[in-house]
């Protein structure tokens, strides 16, 4: 597609429920990244997929967080048993191999846990 597409754009969920966030990267971009941005804060790295290599999960804050990617296509970030501290904007980005020109970001999913 023309840009990185994320859905839903907003999600309100009850504490303890599971949520799935979706990211559709730019066609042909081999690398895909998930970041979290809490209100008024910087970007916190979560997970990185590059082609068929094993993902870099070093940023996932707990085992309640997981992500999958189908080939070089769509990715889903799953948060199980959501907590209020999970409330944030979840940003997805993609890049070509080597990321020479940086990343293209999606519009984000704003997650609110009540």
């Amino acid at each position, binding site marked *: 597609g023309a840009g990185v597409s994320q859905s839903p754009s907003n999600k309100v969920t009850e504490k303890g429920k599971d949520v799935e966030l979706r990211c559709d990267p730019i066609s042909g971009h081999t690398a895909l990244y998930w970041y979290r941005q809490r209100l008024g*804060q*910087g*970007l916190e790295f979560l997970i990185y997929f*590059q082609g068929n290599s094993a993902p870099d999960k070093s940023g996932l804050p707990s085992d309640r967080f997981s992500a999958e990617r189908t080939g070089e296509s769509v990715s889903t970030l799953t948060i199980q048993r959501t907590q209020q501290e999970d409330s944030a904007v979840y*940003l997805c980005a993609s*890049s070509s191999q080597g*990321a020479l020109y940086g990343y293209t970001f999606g519009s984000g999913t704003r997650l609110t846990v009540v």
Partner: protein
Amino acid sequence: ELKVEQNPLFLSMQEGKNYTIYCNYSTTSDRLYWYRQDPGKSLESLFVLLSNGAVKQEGRLMASLDTKARLSTLHITAAVHDLSATYFCAVDRNSGNTPLVFGKGTRLSVIA
């Protein structure tokens, strides 16, 4: 571990004035990126700096990179209200093989 520090974190400046935002990082890197984020929006790429001494300019913004000093600057000339946003620098520590590390952002407010 790569650390990226921006300063100032908050900046209020008058229209027409000049100012510089600084981005320091802790380990060797030849690639640095600047992004802009408007409130409630995603990040938009501003500049890509890929070598020591690189300088890029777009309108009233100019970015530079000094890899020896591990420092990038974003200079604002004759600020206008439309430049009000949060500006992030991000550093690539391993030629695209590891995720970008972002600074905390500089929230710029340009006032009349």
